[in-house]
Protein backbone atom coordinates (compact mmCIF):
# COMPACT_ATOMS: atom_id res chain seq x y z
CA UNK A 1 0.00 0.00 0.00
CA UNK A 2 1.58 3.28 -1.14
CA UNK A 3 1.60 6.04 1.45
CA UNK A 4 0.60 9.16 -0.48
CA UNK A 5 1.96 11.48 2.22
CA UNK A 6 5.46 9.99 2.14
CA UNK A 7 5.36 9.83 -1.65
CA UNK A 8 4.54 13.56 -1.78
CA UNK A 9 7.27 14.59 0.67
CA UNK A 10 9.94 12.50 -1.07
CA UNK A 11 8.86 13.62 -4.54
CA UNK A 12 8.86 17.32 -3.62
CA UNK A 13 12.26 16.99 -1.90
CA UNK A 14 13.80 15.30 -4.94
CA UNK A 15 12.25 17.90 -7.25
CA UNK A 16 14.23 20.58 -5.41
CA UNK A 17 17.42 18.50 -5.48
CA UNK A 18 17.28 18.27 -9.29
CA UNK A 19 18.39 21.92 -9.22
CA UNK A 20 21.86 20.78 -8.11
CA UNK A 21 22.27 19.22 -11.56
CA UNK A 22 20.28 21.63 -13.69
CA UNK A 23 17.09 23.69 -13.68
CA UNK A 24 14.38 21.26 -14.72
CA UNK A 25 10.60 21.00 -14.98
CA UNK A 26 10.62 19.26 -11.60
CA UNK A 27 12.49 22.17 -10.03
CA UNK A 28 10.16 24.76 -11.57
CA UNK A 29 7.16 22.83 -10.27
CA UNK A 30 8.65 22.65 -6.77
CA UNK A 31 9.61 26.33 -6.83
CA UNK A 32 6.13 27.53 -7.76
CA UNK A 33 4.53 25.14 -5.26
CA UNK A 34 6.75 26.54 -2.53
CA UNK A 35 5.94 30.15 -3.41
CA UNK A 36 2.21 29.46 -3.51
CA UNK A 37 2.19 27.55 -0.21
CA UNK A 38 4.38 30.15 1.54
CA UNK A 39 2.17 33.08 0.60
CA UNK A 40 -1.03 31.16 1.24
CA UNK A 41 0.12 30.17 4.71
CA UNK A 42 1.30 33.70 5.53
CA UNK A 43 -2.04 35.15 4.41
CA UNK A 44 -4.02 32.82 6.68
CA UNK A 45 -1.77 33.59 9.64
CA UNK A 46 -2.12 37.31 8.95
CA UNK A 47 -5.92 37.00 9.06
CA UNK A 48 -5.63 35.10 12.32
CA UNK A 49 -3.40 37.79 13.83
CA UNK A 50 -5.78 40.58 12.75
CA UNK A 51 -8.68 38.66 14.24
CA UNK A 52 -7.05 38.06 17.62
CA UNK A 53 -5.31 41.42 18.08
CA UNK A 54 -7.83 43.82 16.54
CA UNK A 55 -11.16 42.20 15.70
CA UNK A 56 -11.78 40.51 19.06
CA UNK A 57 -11.30 43.77 21.07
CA UNK A 58 -13.47 45.68 18.57
CA UNK A 59 -16.29 43.12 18.55
CA UNK A 60 -16.28 42.74 22.36
CA UNK A 61 -16.20 46.52 22.81
CA UNK A 62 -12.93 46.42 24.81
CA UNK A 63 -11.02 48.67 22.42
CA UNK A 64 -12.91 50.08 19.42
CA UNK A 65 -9.97 52.34 18.53
CA UNK A 66 -8.44 49.37 16.72
CA UNK A 67 -10.78 50.32 13.88
CA UNK A 68 -8.22 53.04 13.14
CA UNK A 69 -5.45 50.43 13.02
CA UNK A 70 -7.49 48.28 10.65
CA UNK A 71 -8.20 51.25 8.38
CA UNK A 72 -4.50 52.05 8.28
CA UNK A 73 -3.78 48.42 7.52
CA UNK A 74 -6.22 48.40 4.61
CA UNK A 75 -4.72 51.63 3.32
CA UNK A 76 -1.44 49.72 2.74
CA UNK A 77 -3.16 48.16 -0.25
CA UNK A 78 -3.60 51.54 -1.96
CA UNK A 79 0.00 51.13 -3.11
CA UNK A 80 -1.39 49.13 -6.04
CA UNK A 81 -3.25 52.20 -7.31
CA UNK A 82 -1.18 54.79 -9.16
CA UNK A 83 -3.49 57.62 -8.10
CA UNK A 84 -3.81 56.75 -4.41
CA UNK A 85 -0.49 55.02 -3.69
CA UNK A 86 0.69 57.92 -1.51
CA UNK A 87 -1.87 56.92 1.16
CA UNK A 88 0.14 53.76 1.85
CA UNK A 89 3.04 55.90 3.05
CA UNK A 90 1.20 56.71 6.28
CA UNK A 91 0.99 53.18 7.70
CA UNK A 92 4.52 52.51 6.41
CA UNK A 93 5.70 55.58 8.31
CA UNK A 94 4.07 54.23 11.48
CA UNK A 95 5.92 50.92 11.08
CA UNK A 96 9.20 52.70 10.39
CA UNK A 97 8.75 55.02 13.36
CA UNK A 98 7.96 52.20 15.80
CA UNK A 99 10.76 49.99 14.45
CA UNK A 100 13.32 52.79 14.62
CA UNK A 101 12.27 53.79 18.12
CA UNK A 102 12.35 50.30 19.66
CA UNK A 103 15.70 49.51 18.04
CA UNK A 104 17.36 52.80 18.96
CA UNK A 105 16.33 52.99 22.58
CA UNK A 106 18.38 50.00 23.67
CA UNK A 107 21.12 49.85 21.04
CA UNK A 108 23.37 52.29 22.88
CA UNK A 109 23.41 50.24 26.06
CA UNK A 110 23.38 46.77 24.50
CA UNK A 111 25.71 47.16 21.52
CA UNK A 112 27.93 50.12 22.34
CA UNK A 113 28.32 50.73 26.07
CA UNK A 114 28.18 47.08 27.18
CA UNK A 115 30.60 45.96 24.49
CA UNK A 116 33.10 48.75 25.18
CA UNK A 117 32.85 48.06 28.92
CA UNK A 118 33.50 44.36 28.30
CA UNK A 119 36.65 45.27 26.38
CA UNK A 120 38.21 46.75 29.52
CA UNK A 121 39.88 43.51 30.55
CA UNK A 122 42.56 43.11 33.24
CA UNK A 123 46.00 43.51 31.66
CA UNK A 124 47.72 41.41 34.33
CA UNK A 125 46.33 38.09 35.50
CA UNK A 126 47.88 35.05 37.21
CA UNK A 127 47.44 33.00 34.02
CA UNK A 128 49.98 34.11 31.34
CA UNK A 129 47.76 32.83 28.49
CA UNK A 130 44.81 34.84 29.80
CA UNK A 131 47.04 37.92 30.10
CA UNK A 132 48.17 37.49 26.50
CA UNK A 133 44.58 36.95 25.32
CA UNK A 134 43.29 40.01 27.16
CA UNK A 135 46.00 42.26 25.71
CA UNK A 136 45.41 40.78 22.24
CA UNK A 137 41.65 41.38 22.50
CA UNK A 138 42.05 45.01 23.57
CA UNK A 139 44.52 45.72 20.77
CA UNK A 140 42.47 43.91 18.14
CA UNK A 141 39.19 45.62 19.08
CA UNK A 142 40.88 49.02 18.93
CA UNK A 143 42.50 48.22 15.58
CA UNK A 144 39.22 46.95 14.13
CA UNK A 145 37.39 50.11 15.17
CA UNK A 146 40.25 52.18 13.77
CA UNK A 147 39.99 50.27 10.49
CA UNK A 148 36.26 51.03 10.23
CA UNK A 149 36.58 54.66 11.23
CA UNK A 150 39.66 55.71 9.28
CA UNK A 151 39.42 53.97 5.93
CA UNK A 152 42.17 56.11 4.48
CA UNK A 153 45.12 57.53 6.38
CA UNK A 154 48.63 58.75 5.98
CA UNK A 155 51.62 57.47 7.87
CA UNK A 156 53.21 54.16 8.63
CA UNK A 157 51.66 53.81 12.11
CA UNK A 158 48.07 54.30 10.96
CA UNK A 159 48.74 51.94 8.06
CA UNK A 160 49.99 49.23 10.41
CA UNK A 161 47.07 49.72 12.77
CA UNK A 162 44.63 49.40 9.88
CA UNK A 163 46.51 46.34 8.65
CA UNK A 164 46.18 44.67 12.05
CA UNK A 165 42.49 45.58 12.05
CA UNK A 166 42.12 44.03 8.62
CA UNK A 167 43.91 40.83 9.69
CA UNK A 168 41.64 40.62 12.74
CA UNK A 169 38.63 40.87 10.49
CA UNK A 170 40.02 38.17 8.18
CA UNK A 171 40.33 35.82 11.15
CA UNK A 172 36.78 36.78 12.15
CA UNK A 173 35.46 36.01 8.66
CA UNK A 174 37.28 32.69 8.75
CA UNK A 175 35.50 31.80 11.98
CA UNK A 176 32.20 32.96 10.46
CA UNK A 177 32.89 30.72 7.46
CA UNK A 178 33.40 27.79 9.83
CA UNK A 179 30.01 28.50 11.35
CA UNK A 180 28.45 28.78 7.89
CA UNK A 181 29.72 25.32 7.00
CA UNK A 182 28.10 24.02 10.19
CA UNK A 183 24.74 25.50 9.26
CA UNK A 184 24.79 24.37 5.62
CA UNK A 185 25.79 20.84 6.52
CA UNK A 186 23.21 20.73 9.31
CA UNK A 187 20.43 21.67 6.91
CA UNK A 188 21.51 18.96 4.50
CA UNK A 189 21.95 16.33 7.22
CA UNK A 190 18.44 17.12 8.44
CA UNK A 191 16.96 16.46 5.02
CA UNK A 192 19.02 13.41 4.29
CA UNK A 193 18.25 11.91 7.69
CA UNK A 194 14.56 12.21 6.84
CA UNK A 195 14.97 10.75 3.34
CA UNK A 196 17.13 7.87 4.51
CA UNK A 197 14.82 6.88 7.37
CA UNK A 198 13.44 3.33 6.91
CA UNK A 199 9.90 4.54 6.08
CA UNK A 200 11.14 6.83 3.31
CA UNK A 201 14.14 4.92 1.96
CA UNK A 202 12.33 2.80 -0.63
CA UNK A 203 10.26 5.75 -1.81
CA UNK A 204 13.53 7.68 -2.20
CA UNK A 205 15.08 4.96 -4.36
CA UNK A 206 11.91 4.34 -6.38
CA UNK A 207 10.91 7.94 -7.00
CA UNK A 208 14.54 8.95 -7.53
CA UNK A 209 15.07 6.28 -10.18
CA UNK A 210 11.85 7.24 -11.96
CA UNK A 211 12.79 10.93 -11.98
CA UNK A 212 16.26 10.12 -13.34
CA UNK A 213 14.68 8.16 -16.19
CA UNK A 214 12.27 11.01 -16.99
CA UNK A 215 15.07 13.60 -16.90
CA UNK A 216 17.34 11.46 -19.09
CA UNK A 217 14.51 10.85 -21.55
CA UNK A 218 13.74 14.57 -21.61
CA UNK A 219 17.39 15.42 -22.24
CA UNK A 220 17.62 12.93 -25.11
CA UNK A 221 14.25 13.52 -26.77
CA UNK A 222 13.72 17.31 -26.64
CA UNK A 223 16.87 18.24 -28.66
CA UNK A 224 15.46 16.12 -31.48
CA UNK A 225 12.44 18.43 -31.66
CA UNK A 226 14.41 21.65 -31.43
CA UNK A 227 14.91 23.56 -34.68
CA UNK A 228 18.48 23.38 -35.93
Amino acid at each position, binding site marked *: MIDFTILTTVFLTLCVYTFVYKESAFWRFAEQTFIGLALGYTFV*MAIQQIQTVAWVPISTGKNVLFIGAMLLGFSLYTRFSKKHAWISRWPMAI*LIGIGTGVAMRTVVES*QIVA*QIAATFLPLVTPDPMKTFNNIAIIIMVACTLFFFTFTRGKGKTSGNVRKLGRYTLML*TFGAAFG*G*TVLTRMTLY*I*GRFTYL*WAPAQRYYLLGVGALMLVVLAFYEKITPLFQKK
Partner: protein
Amino acid sequence: MLLIIAVSWPLLFPIGLPVPVSKSTRMAFDTIEKLPSGSLVAVSSVLSGGNWPDLGPPEMALVQHLFKKKMKIVFIGCVDETPTIRESTLLPRINKYDAQIGVDYVNLGFIAGAPDVAEAAFATSLRKVLTVDFRGKPLDELPIMKGVNTLADFKLVIHIGMAEDPVRQYYTPFKIPLIVGVYGMMGPHYIPYLEAGQLSGMIVGLRGAAEYEYLVGFVGEGLMGSDALSITHLLVAICIIAGNLAFLYTTRGGAKKEGTK
Protein backbone atom coordinates in the same frame (compact mmCIF):
# COMPACT_ATOMS: atom_id res chain seq x y z
CA MET B 1 28.34 12.26 -4.53
CA LEU B 2 30.99 12.50 -1.79
CA LEU B 3 28.58 14.55 0.30
CA ILE B 4 25.86 11.91 -0.03
CA ILE B 5 28.30 9.19 1.05
CA ALA B 6 29.63 11.37 3.89
CA VAL B 7 26.13 11.76 5.33
CA SER B 8 24.74 8.29 4.67
CA TRP B 9 27.75 6.33 5.96
CA PRO B 10 27.44 7.38 9.62
CA LEU B 11 23.67 6.99 9.44
CA LEU B 12 24.06 3.37 8.32
CA PHE B 13 27.16 2.63 10.43
CA PRO B 14 27.15 4.96 13.48
CA ILE B 15 30.64 5.82 14.71
CA GLY B 16 29.67 7.08 18.16
CA LEU B 17 32.24 9.89 18.44
CA PRO B 18 32.33 11.61 21.83
CA VAL B 19 30.79 15.07 21.93
CA PRO B 20 32.85 17.48 24.08
CA VAL B 21 30.66 20.06 25.82
CA SER B 22 31.53 23.69 25.13
CA LYS B 23 31.51 26.49 27.70
CA SER B 24 28.49 28.28 26.20
CA THR B 25 26.33 25.12 26.30
CA ARG B 26 27.44 24.33 29.86
CA MET B 27 26.49 27.87 30.92
CA ALA B 28 22.99 27.45 29.47
CA PHE B 29 22.53 24.10 31.20
CA ASP B 30 23.70 25.42 34.57
CA THR B 31 21.42 28.46 34.31
CA ILE B 32 18.35 26.24 33.93
CA GLU B 33 19.57 23.80 36.58
CA LYS B 34 19.84 26.62 39.12
CA LEU B 35 16.27 27.81 38.53
CA PRO B 36 13.73 26.65 41.12
CA SER B 37 11.19 24.16 39.86
CA GLY B 38 7.94 25.81 38.70
CA SER B 39 9.63 29.03 37.53
CA LEU B 40 7.95 30.87 34.68
CA VAL B 41 10.04 30.73 31.51
CA ALA B 42 9.38 32.40 28.15
CA VAL B 43 10.49 30.60 25.01
CA SER B 44 10.41 32.87 21.97
CA SER B 45 11.52 31.64 18.61
CA VAL B 46 11.78 32.18 14.86
CA LEU B 47 11.44 28.47 14.20
CA SER B 48 10.11 27.59 10.76
CA GLY B 49 10.20 24.71 8.30
CA GLY B 50 13.26 26.11 6.54
CA ASN B 51 15.43 26.46 9.62
CA TRP B 52 14.10 23.43 11.53
CA PRO B 53 17.28 21.30 11.07
CA ASP B 54 19.39 24.14 12.55
CA LEU B 55 17.12 25.62 15.21
CA GLY B 56 14.74 22.75 15.93
CA PRO B 57 17.23 20.52 17.81
CA PRO B 58 18.43 23.36 20.12
CA GLU B 59 14.85 24.34 20.94
CA MET B 60 13.86 20.72 21.50
CA ALA B 61 16.83 20.12 23.79
CA LEU B 62 16.14 23.26 25.85
CA VAL B 63 12.39 22.68 26.05
CA GLN B 64 12.94 19.03 27.05
CA HIS B 65 15.15 20.23 29.89
CA LEU B 66 12.50 22.75 30.98
CA PHE B 67 9.80 20.08 31.06
CA LYS B 68 12.12 17.74 32.95
CA LYS B 69 12.68 20.46 35.56
CA LYS B 70 8.89 21.07 35.78
CA MET B 71 9.13 24.70 34.69
CA LYS B 72 6.09 26.70 33.55
CA ILE B 73 6.64 27.48 29.88
CA VAL B 74 5.10 30.22 27.74
CA PHE B 75 5.79 29.74 24.04
CA ILE B 76 5.70 32.72 21.69
CA GLY B 77 6.60 32.98 18.02
CA CYS B 78 8.22 35.89 16.22
CA VAL B 79 7.36 34.56 12.76
CA ASP B 80 4.09 33.14 11.43
CA GLU B 81 5.27 29.54 11.08
CA THR B 82 6.50 29.09 14.64
CA PRO B 83 3.24 28.26 16.45
CA THR B 84 2.15 25.74 13.79
CA ILE B 85 5.48 23.94 13.64
CA ARG B 86 5.61 23.83 17.43
CA GLU B 87 2.17 22.22 17.60
CA SER B 88 2.78 19.76 14.77
CA THR B 89 6.46 18.88 15.10
CA LEU B 90 8.12 20.10 18.31
CA LEU B 91 5.68 19.44 21.15
CA PRO B 92 4.55 15.96 20.00
CA ARG B 93 8.19 14.76 20.08
CA ILE B 94 8.88 15.95 23.62
CA ASN B 95 8.30 14.11 26.88
CA LYS B 96 6.19 16.58 28.82
CA TYR B 97 6.32 14.71 32.14
CA ASP B 98 2.51 15.05 32.62
CA ALA B 99 2.57 18.83 32.07
CA GLN B 100 -0.91 20.18 31.31
CA ILE B 101 -1.59 22.71 28.60
CA GLY B 102 -2.88 25.99 29.98
CA VAL B 103 -1.57 25.15 33.45
CA ASP B 104 2.08 24.20 32.94
CA TYR B 105 2.67 25.38 29.38
CA VAL B 106 0.92 27.37 26.68
CA ASN B 107 1.47 28.20 23.01
CA LEU B 108 0.56 31.85 22.58
CA GLY B 109 0.88 32.02 18.79
CA PHE B 110 2.96 34.66 17.06
CA ILE B 111 3.26 38.44 16.88
CA ALA B 112 3.48 40.05 13.43
CA GLY B 113 6.16 42.59 12.69
CA ALA B 114 9.93 42.94 12.50
CA PRO B 115 11.78 40.86 15.15
CA ASP B 116 12.63 43.93 17.29
CA VAL B 117 9.05 45.18 17.19
CA ALA B 118 7.49 41.76 17.87
CA GLU B 119 9.83 41.10 20.79
CA ALA B 120 9.35 44.59 22.25
CA ALA B 121 5.58 44.15 21.96
CA PHE B 122 5.74 40.77 23.74
CA ALA B 123 8.04 42.14 26.45
CA THR B 124 6.11 45.30 27.25
CA SER B 125 2.56 44.95 25.88
CA LEU B 126 1.81 41.24 26.17
CA ARG B 127 -1.90 41.59 27.00
CA LYS B 128 -2.50 44.14 24.24
CA VAL B 129 -1.00 42.08 21.38
CA LEU B 130 -2.10 38.63 22.57
CA THR B 131 -5.72 38.14 23.57
CA VAL B 132 -5.99 34.38 22.99
CA ASP B 133 -3.59 31.45 22.81
CA PHE B 134 -2.95 29.47 19.62
CA ARG B 135 -5.94 27.23 20.31
CA GLY B 136 -8.20 30.28 20.66
CA LYS B 137 -8.63 30.22 24.44
CA PRO B 138 -8.66 33.70 26.08
CA LEU B 139 -5.54 34.41 28.15
CA ASP B 140 -7.64 35.35 31.18
CA GLU B 141 -8.93 31.75 31.35
CA LEU B 142 -5.43 30.23 31.44
CA PRO B 143 -4.03 29.60 34.95
CA ILE B 144 -0.45 29.91 33.68
CA MET B 145 -1.06 33.47 32.47
CA LYS B 146 -2.47 34.70 35.76
CA GLY B 147 -0.65 37.88 36.83
CA VAL B 148 1.61 37.81 33.77
CA ASN B 149 1.69 41.22 32.09
CA THR B 150 5.24 41.93 30.98
CA LEU B 151 8.55 40.14 30.65
CA ALA B 152 9.42 41.24 34.20
CA ASP B 153 7.10 38.46 35.42
CA PHE B 154 9.35 35.77 33.94
CA LYS B 155 12.43 34.24 35.60
CA LEU B 156 14.20 33.25 32.37
CA VAL B 157 13.87 33.99 28.67
CA ILE B 158 15.02 31.61 25.97
CA HIS B 159 15.19 32.86 22.40
CA ILE B 160 15.79 30.64 19.42
CA GLY B 161 17.04 32.54 16.40
CA MET B 162 19.30 35.57 16.29
CA ALA B 163 20.77 37.09 19.45
CA GLU B 164 20.98 40.86 18.80
CA ASP B 165 17.25 41.59 19.04
CA PRO B 166 16.57 39.61 22.25
CA VAL B 167 19.64 41.23 23.87
CA ARG B 168 18.15 44.60 22.88
CA GLN B 169 14.52 43.89 23.74
CA TYR B 170 14.61 41.21 26.46
CA TYR B 171 17.87 41.50 28.37
CA THR B 172 18.74 45.22 28.23
CA PRO B 173 15.42 46.64 29.55
CA PHE B 174 14.63 43.87 32.06
CA LYS B 175 18.01 42.31 32.94
CA ILE B 176 16.43 38.84 33.02
CA PRO B 177 18.73 35.87 32.29
CA LEU B 178 18.69 35.21 28.54
CA ILE B 179 19.70 31.96 26.85
CA VAL B 180 19.83 31.82 23.07
CA GLY B 181 19.80 28.96 20.60
CA VAL B 182 21.33 30.29 17.42
CA TYR B 183 22.08 29.21 13.86
CA GLY B 184 25.42 27.46 13.51
CA MET B 185 26.75 30.24 11.33
CA MET B 186 25.86 32.91 13.88
CA GLY B 187 27.56 31.22 16.84
CA PRO B 188 30.92 32.98 16.32
CA HIS B 189 29.08 36.30 15.84
CA TYR B 190 27.51 36.23 19.30
CA ILE B 191 30.52 35.31 21.43
CA PRO B 192 31.01 39.01 22.35
CA TYR B 193 27.53 39.06 23.94
CA LEU B 194 28.38 35.93 25.90
CA GLU B 195 31.69 37.37 27.09
CA ALA B 196 30.03 40.67 28.03
CA GLY B 197 27.60 38.82 30.30
CA GLN B 198 24.53 39.73 28.28
CA LEU B 199 23.84 36.06 27.55
CA SER B 200 23.59 33.36 30.20
CA GLY B 201 24.27 30.62 27.67
CA MET B 202 24.26 29.85 24.00
CA ILE B 203 23.41 26.71 22.03
CA VAL B 204 25.03 26.79 18.61
CA GLY B 205 23.16 24.83 15.97
CA LEU B 206 23.16 21.07 15.72
CA ARG B 207 26.50 20.73 17.53
CA GLY B 208 25.21 22.69 20.51
CA ALA B 209 22.02 20.66 20.51
CA ALA B 210 24.06 17.43 20.60
CA GLU B 211 26.03 18.74 23.60
CA TYR B 212 22.85 19.81 25.38
CA GLU B 213 21.10 16.49 24.75
CA TYR B 214 24.13 14.75 26.23
CA LEU B 215 23.89 16.93 29.36
CA VAL B 216 20.11 16.48 29.74
CA GLY B 217 20.37 12.75 29.05
CA PHE B 218 18.30 11.98 25.97
CA VAL B 219 19.07 11.18 22.33
CA GLY B 220 17.55 13.66 19.91
CA GLU B 221 18.34 14.95 16.44
CA GLY B 222 21.55 16.56 17.72
CA LEU B 223 23.26 13.40 18.89
CA MET B 224 21.81 11.40 15.98
CA GLY B 225 23.33 13.80 13.49
CA SER B 226 26.67 14.49 15.19
CA ASP B 227 28.55 11.68 13.43
CA ALA B 228 27.32 12.86 10.05
CA LEU B 229 28.30 16.40 11.06
CA SER B 230 31.83 15.23 11.85
CA ILE B 231 32.28 13.42 8.52
CA THR B 232 30.89 16.27 6.43
CA HIS B 233 33.05 18.84 8.21
CA LEU B 234 36.09 16.63 7.70
CA LEU B 235 35.17 16.38 4.02
CA VAL B 236 34.98 20.18 3.64
CA ALA B 237 38.27 20.68 5.50
CA ILE B 238 39.99 18.06 3.29
CA CYS B 239 38.53 19.73 0.17
CA ILE B 240 39.89 23.11 1.22
CA ILE B 241 43.34 21.76 2.08
CA ALA B 242 43.52 19.59 -1.06
CA GLY B 243 42.34 22.45 -3.25
CA ASN B 244 44.97 24.77 -1.82
CA LEU B 245 47.76 22.17 -2.11
CA ALA B 246 46.81 21.68 -5.76
CA PHE B 247 46.77 25.47 -6.23
CA LEU B 248 50.23 25.79 -4.62
CA TYR B 249 51.57 22.95 -6.77
CA THR B 250 50.25 24.44 -10.02
CA THR B 251 51.46 27.98 -9.24
CA ARG B 252 54.88 26.75 -8.13
CA GLY B 253 55.02 24.39 -11.08
CA GLY B 254 54.15 27.29 -13.39
CA ALA B 255 56.78 29.53 -11.76
CA LYS B 256 59.43 26.82 -12.12
CA LYS B 257 58.63 26.40 -15.81
CA GLU B 258 58.89 30.18 -16.27
CA GLY B 259 62.29 30.09 -14.52
CA THR B 260 63.67 27.31 -16.73
CA LYS B 261 62.73 29.13 -19.96
